[in-house]
């Protein structure tokens, strides 16, 4: 498949007796926004962990742009263009928003064995960082400490940091988690703007967001992909309805 950017094949991960990933196969096409939905405990975060390299799979493979990256360490994956945002925001809380993003830019601007020049006034880092902040609607909050940002703003900052690494694939792990309705709407708008420019794998509970944004949806239940297709097909799929959407809040949402 020429337009496949990320190919996951038979990915399997067990934790003791629990199968968190059960021969998961999934293909992410270049430029698409592919969402993964599934109930709590379906193994969504475990799947992302294996894509970023934080969790080693027991079997199966992950290929990125044709290259097998199954055994590549975390920082190398980031270097070739795989970026993630964390389900639980993971920021440098004692740094300003701009410093957070600048650090992400720096990570992809060659090695950092530069001991003398002030990085805080280095436009090569500050300008792209500022642009990424503007991109997610945080332009006015650049000089605020990450610790002083609201929950929703921290999520936006997470995405700005992931974006600043100029990723080819963006892995978003429940970016809407814990957000109020207004914040969710704003984030959906931000993601809609990013769509097409970067390939996105979105793991999300919020059905409104998923059906508003995704071109394709895969449904993960007990570690297995039970269905994959466009939003209309997923909505109509009887297996999915029974397993997951049945009484779901999002089923009647559109």
């Amino acid at each position, binding site marked *: 498949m020429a337009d496949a950017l990320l190919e996951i094949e038979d990915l399997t991960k067990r934790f003791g007796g629990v199968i968190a990933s059960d021969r998961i196969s999934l293909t992410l096409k270049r430029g698409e926004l592919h969402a993964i939905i599934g109930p709590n405990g379906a193994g969504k975060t475990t799947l992302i962990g294996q894509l970023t390299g934080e969790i080693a799979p027991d079997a199966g493979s992950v290929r990125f742009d044709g290259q097998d990256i199954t055994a590549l360490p975390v920082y190398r994956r980031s270097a070739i263009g795989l970026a993630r945002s964390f389900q639980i925001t993971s920021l*440098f809380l004692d740094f300003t928003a701009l410093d957070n993003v600048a650090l992400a830019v720096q*990570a992809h601007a060659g090695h950092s064995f530069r001991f*003398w020049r002030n990085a805080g006034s280095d436009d090569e880092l500050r300008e792209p960082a500022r642009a990424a902040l503007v991109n997610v609607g945080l332009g006015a909050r650049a000089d605020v400490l990450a610790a002083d940002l609201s929950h929703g703003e921290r999520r936006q900052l997470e995405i700005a940091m992931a974006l600043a690494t100029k990723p080819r694939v963006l892995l978003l792990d429940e970016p809407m988690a814990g957000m109020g309705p207004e914040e969710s709407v704003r984030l959906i708008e931000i993601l809609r703007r990013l769509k097409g420019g970067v390939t996105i794998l979105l793991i999300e509970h919020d059905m409104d967001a998923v059906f508003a944004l995704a071109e394709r949806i895969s449904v993960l239940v007990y570690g297995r992909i039970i269905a994959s297709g466009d939003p209309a097909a997923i909505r109509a799929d009887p297996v999915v309805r029974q397993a997951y959407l049945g009484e779901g809040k999002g089923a009647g949402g559109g």
Partner: protein
Amino acid sequence: MSHSLTPRLAVNVVLLLILGLVPVYAALTDNTFVMTLFTRVIILAIAALSLNLIMGFGGMVSFGHAAYLGIGGYAVGILSKEGIDSGFVQWPVAIGASALFALVVGTLSLRTRGVYFIMITLAFAQMVYYIAIGLDRYGGDDGLTIYHQSQFGGLVNLNNKTVFYYLCLVLLLAGIYAVWRIVNSRFGLVIRGARSNEGRMRAIGFPTFRYKLTCFVIAGAMCGLAGALLANHTNYISPAIMEWTRSGDLIVMAVLGGMRAAFGPLIGAMTFLLLEDWLSRVTDYPNLIIGPVLLIVAIYINGGIDGLLGRRRHG
């Protein structure tokens, strides 16, 4: 950065004036003790500064930092005993040996965190301590008298206490400036980022280990230089220079002064050593007072003495 006269700037300027004028005061009052005391303050400030680079900015709490003082000191002592008095040999050996030791310790300890890291650094320091005790040829437990200062041809004469004092002061100020440049450079941001959130640093693409290890080696080398200075100051070197309590003292100095400040270790070393000196003259139990003072600073004053001088924007 604004150039208005903040309390911090004022304190730092006064501090520098005091340090600059100590030899003048000593000469006018014929007080050699004050020279000895302040030379010691400056040398241990260099050691605390190097510790603060890894601990304050990098979050790596080394409980074996005095080992580098010992290695630097013994490099001077052993070479001197063997008839090599040239500082051009002694000092690079002191710095190089300390850097090498830091490379070994760092390689083995930096993959661990928290208590494990503290224990491994302590264990290595204890190892060097006992090796020094076992060096019979170099005085073993009793230590080794150094009969000649390091020789630098006609360049500087370390026999002259005033010259030696100003040399130490210049090295300290150069060290503070270098640390300040480093922590604000790209390299420094990686180190500070790793302290703040190492998992995230890796996720955005930094191989943090090699940066932390480099930082660890720089700190070791700098402390090795302090050890060479200390040996020249006391004309004597013994295992006591690297007792584990000395490592503790260095941590105390860094914390007391303020770990996020370039000047913090100097302020901390000066406060600690002057307090210790004064208390040991007015009481038989100086630690009974230093202990509680430290507790108060640690619990109530975020950022050490530097923290009292106004809030810093960020780490």
